[in-house]
């Protein structure tokens, strides 16, 4: 581990070289929007919301999996990045069936908050209205594919923290879906411990507790920090622990 100095949005900062750009930025109250990232589980760089510009680099870099380098000059909210973030959230909105008004996590939803944050006033691409189903076979929880954004937080928390590895992804492209136990109903899963971690870390209403009414359910992602303090911090940005 070494200390490097870099510039983020014009601010000169020092950082440890085994942290991620995202960690460094957040320590200095520079906000970069994220969706698939969650403190406590590994990063996969999938949602592309935390992309930043680095001077001299030809490609945009995901802040969650990029490490700070000496002399790096980073810009986190250029007009181009803001536009792309708006488009990405727009694509997410068009991909699923997100009906906020009848959702149990209405007003406590990260996708909703992201839409506010990036200034998504309307969706320019046509809604795809996919034909998705709901798995309510579990005694305590519901999986609603209509509201899933495929961030894979559930996959990672179940594998990395609970150690059960109930969740996986099946299919390709737009047909990707979260599945439990080789695509069996969640309620019949033999590996699920019903711990509920996946439900708490899910950013949307895709994984929810049963018995809650519209806008009643609040998600809690902070608990992870306390569970995983024993793990080395460096592992949080290890790309090899991503066991999708």
């Amino acid at each position, binding site marked *: 581990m070494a200390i490097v100095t870099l510039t983020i949005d014009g601010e000169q900062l020092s950082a440890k070289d085994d942290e991620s750009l995202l960690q460094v930025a957040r320590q200095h109250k520079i906000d970069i929007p994220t969706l698939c990232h969650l403190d406590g589980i590994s990063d996969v760089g999938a949602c592309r919301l935390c992309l930043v510009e680095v001077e001299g680099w030809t*490609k*945009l870099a995901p802040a969650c999996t990029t490490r700070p380098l000496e002399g790096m000059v980073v810009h986190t909210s250029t007009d181009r990045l803001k536009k792309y973030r708006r*488009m990405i959230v727009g694509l997410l909105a068009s991909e699923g069936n997100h009906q906020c008004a009848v959702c149990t996590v209405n007003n406590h939803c990260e996708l909703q908050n992201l839409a506010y944050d990036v200034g998504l006033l309307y969706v320019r691409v046509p809604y795809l209205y996919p034909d998705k189903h709901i798995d309510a076979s579990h005694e305590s929880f519901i999986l609603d594919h209509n509201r899933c954004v495929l961030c894979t937080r559930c996959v990672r928390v179940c594998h990395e923290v609970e150690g059960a590895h109930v969740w996986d992804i099946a299919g390709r*492209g737009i047909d*990707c879906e979260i599945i439990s136990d080789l695509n069996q109903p969640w309620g019949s899963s033999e590996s699920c411990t019903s711990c509920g971690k996946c439900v708490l870390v899910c950013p949307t209403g895709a994984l929810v507790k049963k018995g809650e009414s519209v806008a009643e359910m609040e998600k809690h992602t902070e608990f992870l920090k306390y569970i995983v303090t024993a793990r080395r911090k460096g592992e949080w940005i290890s790309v090899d622990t991503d066991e*999708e």
Partner: protein
Amino acid sequence: MTVEDLQELAEQEQARQAKFSHRLMYCSAAGCVSCGSLNIRDMLKKALQEKNLADKVEVIGTGCMGLCGEGPLVKVLPEGTLYQRVDEAAAKRIVDEHLVQGPIVQDNVVDITHPFFAAQFKIVLENCGRIDAERIEEYIAVNGYEALARVVTEMQPGEVIEEVRKSGIRGRGGAGYPTGLKWGIVRKVPSDTKYVVCNADEGDPGAFMDRSVLEGDPHRILEGMAIAGYAIGAQQGYIYVRAEYPLAIERLRLAIKQAERVGLLGNRILESQFNFRIDLRIGAGAFVCGEETALIRSIEGRRGRPRPRPPYPSERGLWGMPTLLNNVETFANIAPIIRNGSSWFNAIGIPKSTGTKVFALAGKIRNTGLIEVPMGIPLRKIVFDMGGGTPEGTEFKAAQTGGPSGGCIPAEHLDVPVDYESLNAVGSIMGSGGMIVMDSTSQMVDVAKYFMDFCKDESCGKCIPCRVGTVHIHGLLEKIAAGKATTDDLGLLEELCVMVKETSLCGLGQSAPNPVLSTLRFFRHEYEELLKQPETFVPSGNGNDPTTH
């Protein structure tokens, strides 16, 4: 086996071959097999028996001879006469007339002085059409494994890398990263365990360069990989080959077994201290598994999904170990480079793109098939001299290189030299070697739509821009093709393409919009014509796969 044993084996095989007056080479690659070359083999053997020539003439299955559109192909050695469209009657005539009486069968003979053959320069495909792919002795008889022998007995690993670096060879998978530099990086990473991986997950529609090498000359790949293993300090190699190539898999399995049996793979290769094994890993056919990080995951038995780089595989690859990953064609060039020296290789092609490149010519062109040309050759020469131009009555419109990641090169850029930088400058890429020619009957919106349809199906779904963006781009292209789109739709299409290109996680998403962007650049009027006249709308094209003839 010692180096002397290797030489002896070569001499024995040469002596065995010298006993035959002729060798009849029938093409046993997938293209000719599918149009009946195995039946032709039986016919040839039967005809030879009838003429009592069975022990004077050998019938041999060989690799791709290039002119795939005119198969089945049969070549008569030592004369080198090539016959096309050989049916049962022609097979009998080749034996009765050519072998017994002397005159060649004019009806089926191919003019091998035609530029399609004459303008080629064969390094990678030098043994295709020349040896039996299923016998290691034949490969050894044409200097096979000589380079490996020299490397393990006379050269230091650093010298091998220096030789590869000086040859100037760049990655033939398409991106063109200098191979010697890559080898040097993997060598420098300290680790007891390293891997060599050969990417044989050729997935571009219409491309079959790697398949032809694997089917026609599998030992060349094994030799190239073993040399790489020696150079970087690896003892294990994997060939990741797609399940859609059953013949290539069969031949590779056989080749590995043969090489192990004679001590050219395994422990103490050629009595040296060098151990190297190669195993096959069969891909299930996902296009994205050709992306290096996804390929590595797939070998590990996990879902083939790309991950962000860095760390690059050269640092953390297979099972977290430093891994050298090269394409089939790259490995196929290694043995000739060592055997003939880097300055020989360097002199072929142009300074920044040395050596040759294999292309699979397809689409609206008279001579379809496989060609190997020196780098820097003008595109015009490939399309018109070698390919014979577009079919009668049509005009050349564009050449598509790089498959779903590449772009279309219009007629005004026909004189572009085929090298990495020049193709980039006209908005396309070298790619792995697919070249689809389009004529005046091709609709560019349909071409773009075809490739976007492919990309949206093959997206792994991990990152949002590629997963959802490609679906919307495809939807907009459909809308345009159907004559229902507005100027706003065209603007949105362009914005989405740039966004998907710049924000996607891996090469698949980053390059998926290229066919759209390049057709928009050169054939924008075709898009606009479909917007302007909604009332006199005529549906575009027939929506056919542009790779078909």
